[in-house]
């Protein structure tokens, strides 16, 4: 990664142009050609630096709810449990953590009723009964920009 890559990543995280020729406009900001910007972005995607370029929506404002769930899963059931949970398209994140509540996942769904139903299904299918559900009450921060080190 060179200096222009770093500046480009900074710009496209926070201020991607909503214009006819966004890559050309980024080029103007960084003093590169449109073609150069496109080539760099393609490379940064290929190298696995950029995950995606697209929209991030405020789930609540577009009519969805989000929640965080924590499950206590015995070691020999983790694989089955994770496979079952990850099948739900509304599960966007799922991690193993060092705690007796060891599997933590987030759910996006049209309403809490749907989430309760999904959790009941998961309990029934996996036999893991201990699943806590923490709906978001207030958002203090969702970081936009990772400063590159």
């Amino acid at each position, binding site marked *: 990664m060179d200096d222009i890559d770093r500046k480009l*990543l900074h710009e*496209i*995280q*926070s*201020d*991607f142009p*909503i214009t*006819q*020729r*966004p*890559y*050309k406009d980024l080029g103007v900001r960084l003093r590169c050609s449109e073609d150069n910007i*496109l080539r760099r*972005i393609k490379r940064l*995607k290929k*190298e*696995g*630096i*950029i*995950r*995606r*370029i*697209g*929209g*991030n*929506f*405020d*789930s609540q*404002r*577009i*009519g*969805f709810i989000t929640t*965080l769930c*924590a499950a206590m899963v015995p070691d020999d059931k983790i694989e089955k449990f994770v496979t079952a949970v990850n099948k739900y398209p509304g*599960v*966007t*994140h*799922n*991690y*193993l*953590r*060092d705690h007796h509540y060891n599997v*933590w996942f987030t759910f*996006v769904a049209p309403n809490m009723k749907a989430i309760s139903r999904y959790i009941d299904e998961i309990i029934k299918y996996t036999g893991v009964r201990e699943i*806590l*559900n*923490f*709906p*978001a*009450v*207030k*958002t*203090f*921060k*969702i*970081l*936009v920009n*990772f400063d*590159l*080190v």
Partner: protein
Amino acid sequence: MLDDLEKKIIHFLQGDLPLTERPFAVLAKRIGIDEGELLDRIKLLKEQGMLRRLGATLYHQRVGFKANAMVAWCVPDDKIDETGFLMAAFKEVSHCYQRKIAEKWRYNIFTMIHGKSKKDCQGICKRIAEKTGIKDYVLLLTLKEFKKTSPRYF
């Protein structure tokens, strides 16, 4: 409520923007409107706060943050706002939410923190605890990622 056009726009923006000279023209064609109208509608979604941002999402492990942790804090009800904003001000904190607590779980503010190592994460927690005065917390290191994806709404 969202109209059909808004749902279509969200459908295409929740994915990956085409890497071509005029990405919005490509999407507009798929949606069946013209490029100018799409640009206007996207700007409107942004103004209304429905589109939080349009741009790149990075794999942060690959940009130098090798360790991350969820930290859950037990914050007295009358200090939630003050504490939430103090925590959010830390640059190592990427997410900070107040959540409804459950039985068997008293920690009501959740933060995600990012560091270069486990020790680094522990140090960040200590600094947050000192700054906010909240000493009752649990550090949940991320051991493995099972899934990480963007939501598909429509």
